[in-house]
């Protein structure tokens, strides 16, 4: 590793910050991609984008899922919830159009009333946006701890390409001072442009996408730019990182972008969860990081790059500290959630996701 350079475009707080606690959540039910193919393509259609996706139960939504991930993060951080100065939830599936997810999550974990609360939106990178903001809040000294959550119960139109992958899950992070952290966030970097690759208009149930336009000018361009700029500014190459996590709308995209940036399949393996839980949108990169932290060792360096349509990427350069080993087992691990699995058929999925008009 070369000496880190300072760059005016990096988002780096004045006071060093890091992750003091993290937690994941994946609902129990799984819909195999071949089941979607059975219904819509007569079982044909070679090269399914994933194996199966996680589906929330009838009584789950972004609020209940965020509460469980937040409780896991609190277990690992071992702090008093009244010390949180922010509870921020990024999602594109907030249960209400008007009424915050974050206040209910804050109430459930006992963080109210002396806290900031807000819901974030930026397609699939709403969670990492909240994480950058939490770095700013803690890094400026405005608050000692801040919680950032990325969670989704993603929507996909029946029969659309997105229906194979639109999954459910996410993670919660508590950001605090670097000296208390299980992983220090060395810096972040954001790269955004106005790119119309995917959107959902107000009052519409399902999103629209720009077909192949979602690839090169959107996903690949933004992730590559964010990762490249981050590594140049930090004076690193792919070899300096033990692990990497990229936003994962399907299995192929993160594998390809990782290869283009010089990362090996081994480096992205622990954080590549899309084949078994689907694309968790605002939770996708974030839950990849929870699974990676679950097996990380002190000193491991991690690169995480999210992507949100519309479009933008947030890159994070993270170094794991000695505290990781004592905190990993304090809450349920991401792979344990993935192993808790009940397969459902398409009909059950239709009922669970409210796709039947009852009146």
């Amino acid at each position: 590793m070369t000496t880190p350079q300072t760059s005016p475009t990096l988002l780096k707080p004045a006071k060093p910050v890091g992750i003091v606690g993290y937690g994941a959540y994946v609902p129990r039910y799984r819909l195999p991609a071949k089941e979607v193919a059975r219904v819509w393509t007569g079982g044909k259609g070679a090269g399914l984008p994933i194996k199966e996706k996680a589906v929330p139960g009838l009584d789950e939504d972004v609020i209940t899922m965020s509460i469980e991930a937040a409780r896991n993060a609190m277990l690992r951080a071992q702090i008093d919830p009244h010390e949180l100065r922010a509870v921020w939830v990024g999602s594109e599936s907030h249960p209400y159009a008007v009424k915050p997810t974050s206040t209910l999550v804050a109430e459930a974990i006992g963080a109210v009333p002396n806290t900031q609360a807000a819901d974030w939106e930026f397609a699939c990178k709403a969670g990492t946006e909240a994480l950058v903001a939490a770095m700013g809040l803690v890094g400026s000294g405005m608050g000692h701890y801040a919680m950032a959550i990325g969670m989704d119960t993603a929507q996909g139109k029946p029969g659309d390409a997105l229906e194979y992958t639109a999954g459910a899950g996410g993670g919660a992070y508590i950001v605090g001072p670097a000296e208390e952290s299980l992983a220090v966030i060395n810096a972040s970097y954001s790269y955004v442009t106005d790119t119309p690759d995917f959107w959902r208009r107000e009052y519409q149930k399902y999103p629209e996408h720009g077909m192949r336009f979602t690839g090169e000018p959107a996903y690949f361009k933004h992730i590559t730019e964010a990762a490249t700029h981050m590594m140049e500014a930090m004076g690193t190459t792919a070899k300096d990182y033990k692990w990497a996590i990229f936003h994962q709308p399907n299995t192929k995209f993160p594998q390809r972008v990782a290869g283009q940036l010089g990362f090996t399949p081994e480096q992205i393996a622990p954080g590549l969860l899309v084949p078994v839980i689907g694309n968790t949108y605002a939770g996708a990169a974030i839950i990849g990081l929870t699974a990676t932290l679950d097996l990380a060792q002190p000193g491991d360096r991690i690169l995480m790059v999210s992507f949100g349509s519309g479009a933008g990427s947030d890159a994070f350069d993270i170094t794991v500290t000695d505290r990781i080993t004592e905190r990993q087992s304090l809450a349920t691990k991401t792979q344990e959630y993935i192993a808790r699995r009940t397969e459902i058929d398409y009909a059950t999925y239709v009922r669970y996701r409210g796709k039947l008009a009852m009146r």
Partner: protein
Amino acid sequence: MEIPRHWRLKQQRYGLVGEVCPHCDAKIFPPRDVCPNCGDEAKTLYTFSGKGEVFSYTTIYEAPSGFDSNAPYTVALVKLEEGPMITAQLTDLGEQPVEIGMPVEMVTRKMRNDGDERGLIVYGYKFRPAWNMPQG
């Protein structure tokens, strides 16, 4: 519309917050400000661990209004680790059969809509089979 009631009960429903008696240390749920054990005043808040076991259960096929979209579902008498017995729905059962004595843990879930889909979403405690409970 029962907005004031939902608002008043939010702490006990979201987080299983009850009371502890300062005189005899009995744990109280739901909170009632008077200790059912010794009869003295008990207003100290106490957050339950959420761990317990199934004392008895039944499956509801003809659900009351507001709960029908979730039927069939299982309701149990759950004996909390700290003592009190409460009634709650079980969730996340998958294909797992329910048994008396089965260890369960609290989760916060959607209970129902207050009125129709334009109304408030009511959240509260349910219990799921305990699995891989983290220590500490």
